[in-house]
């Protein structure tokens, strides 16, 4: 996975709450096994010529700024793949749905959660800049900087920050515990044997 340290680029304002994964990646509109993810991103909203991602300055947007509970709905990781296919590697929101947040981390995308005054300031500044000047997200310093005001600090769980900074392979991390997994299986086969066997008793 590509490590995430800093990211600089246009920040697109989509200041709505509860944007769901059906909206982010309307899979209903491209049902191929290997769809065009860039084309899929907000495909339905993009039928409206005025939609933010149709505007020239956001064709290479790197940051998306949204409202509350971003990414609710299904578990489909395609929502994150559509964002990365566009080049968006950071979503700033006032909260993320649990599974979507996890899917971001799995793909080297920073789910940057802000609330209160910080969120208000970033939303206002991103809207005012309107893509004319870039914003920078610095995961080392945990700041967002850009036109219209001072750097805004953000918090992130240290473990998630480390994982993004180092671009760690999640499965690789877990496989370091292969012995623990085997030991658990051994213990459970004795203590709760029904958990370790999924046998069809008719066969």
């Amino acid at each position, binding site marked *: 996975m590509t490590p995430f340290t800093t990211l600089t680029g246009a920040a697109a304002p989509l200041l709505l709450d509860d944007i*769901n994964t059906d909206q982010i990646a309307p899979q209903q509109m491209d049902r191929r096994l290997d769809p065009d993810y860039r084309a899929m991103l907000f495909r339905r909203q993009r039928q409206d010529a005025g939609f933010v991602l149709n505007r020239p300055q956001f064709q290479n947007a790197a940051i998306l700024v949204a409202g509350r509970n971003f990414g609710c*709905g*299904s578990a489909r990781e395609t929502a994150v793949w559509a964002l990365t296919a566009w080049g968006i590697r950071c979503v700033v929101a006032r909260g993320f*749905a649990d599974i979507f947040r996890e899917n971001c981390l799995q793909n080297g995308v920073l789910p940057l959660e802000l609330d209160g005054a910080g969120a208000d300031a970033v939303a206002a500044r991103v809207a005012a800049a309107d893509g004319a000047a870039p914003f920078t997200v610095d995961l080392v310093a945990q700041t967002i900087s850009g036109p219209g005001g001072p750097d805004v600090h953000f918090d992130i769980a240290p473990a998630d920050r480390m994982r993004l900074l180092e671009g760690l392979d999640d499965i690789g*991390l*877990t496989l370091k515990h292969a012995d623990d997994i085997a030991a658990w299986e051994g213990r459970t086969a004795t203590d709760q044997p029904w958990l370790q066997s999924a046998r*069809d008793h008719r066969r």
Partner: protein
Amino acid sequence: MPQTLFDKIWQSHLVAKRPDGRDLIYIDRHVMHDLHTPHALAQLEKKQRPVRRPDLTFATQDHTIASKPGRDDTTNPEGAPFLRATRAGSARHGIRLFDLGDPEQGISHVVAPELGMVLPGATHAVPDSHACTVGGLGALAFGCGASELEHVLATQVLALRRPRRMRVRADGRLGTQVTAKDLALRIIAEIGVAGGRGHSIEYAGAATRGLDVEGRLTLCNLTIEMGARSGFVAPDDTTFQWLAGRPFAPQGAAWDRALAHWGTLVSDADAEFDREVAIDCATLEPQLTWGTDPSQTVGVSARVPQAASDGMRRALDYMGLSGGEPLAGLAVGRVFIGSCTNARLSDLEAAAAVVRGRKVAPGVTALVVPGSTSVKRAAEARGLDDVFRSAGFLWGESGCSMCAGGNGDRGLPQERCVSTTNRNFENRQGTAVRTHLASPATAAAAAIAGHIVDVRKLMAGAA
């Protein structure tokens, strides 16, 4: 120290703590489906990693499979590559697949409980957000994305942040024609679509206890619509009786031993929750959504609310409503009874009880899609297919069908659809389709009346 049931299950499945602070939680059963299996297996193979426990892993064809009678791989042409890749991948890795044509094929969240793959106190993962359904049996389930699916395939654990604990107590008794679906919609309306975020929810209280297992599965199914990844009901005798003798459940001495353990699966009396919510069910009536997220719910006798925000205005516009009109009486073009939420046998029986001896109103397209092929067979043995067909319903082959339209089953633009599914998002059931979520009985009543109606009045001959 007193523990919640969540703590007990979590603790007993904790394999190790990763240095990055994540808990490795062992996954006892893992069920995949056609939409995500092809990609996850391809990724795994690219990295030359084996499936660690194919014997604990299952797959089913549900999302892209056609519901037309006589279907084959190509009935839904867009689904064919998914079905074939899932079939080939399952065969390569020795994973049991409930394939097209298998007598037990169906929606993963319906198949896993009914075959007894899911057990009380066990952990469960599905690459689908409604994995939480099987919490109805007292299991702790996690919906996951494609990368996490690959992670479970390779390691048989999930690397998780420990959620907080929430308890939702449903007090009182549910009235006639007031179901688990109505209760769940009410809870979502009360706590909101993000109300459970970061939490694992235990459903408790007299009304929850009074639900049969299928009702509990429906209630837990909608947990993700509250923003929580897992929700469950502590297992009890109702659960154990329902599970006994199912093909994958333990048998004989192993059953007795499991049963003794399952008896300990309760939250201790003074265990602490991070959040508690209580819902009074005494006055609960059948519920329907009026808007474009599942929290936009009102009772059937209520009026659609007036727009109090831009978001509400957008939802009303999309739904073709002005706000302030009575919900009952809105003309309906389509009715869908199906999905992992409400397509088990008891759901179809509840709908059939409304439909029996009546006809679908002219101009309404009505479709029933059983949650599994086993449910379909059981329903046919009881003659339910005749009840539906002779009333004018279509009777489909099992799968997700119109829930997300992934198999090509969709409504028409601007069509008002009463649906027993779980998401009334814009365009989910087809472009510009106006979805109202409701229980099977309420959906059936709408098909008969041709408009939204209080099923209790319809049954009393007063509507």
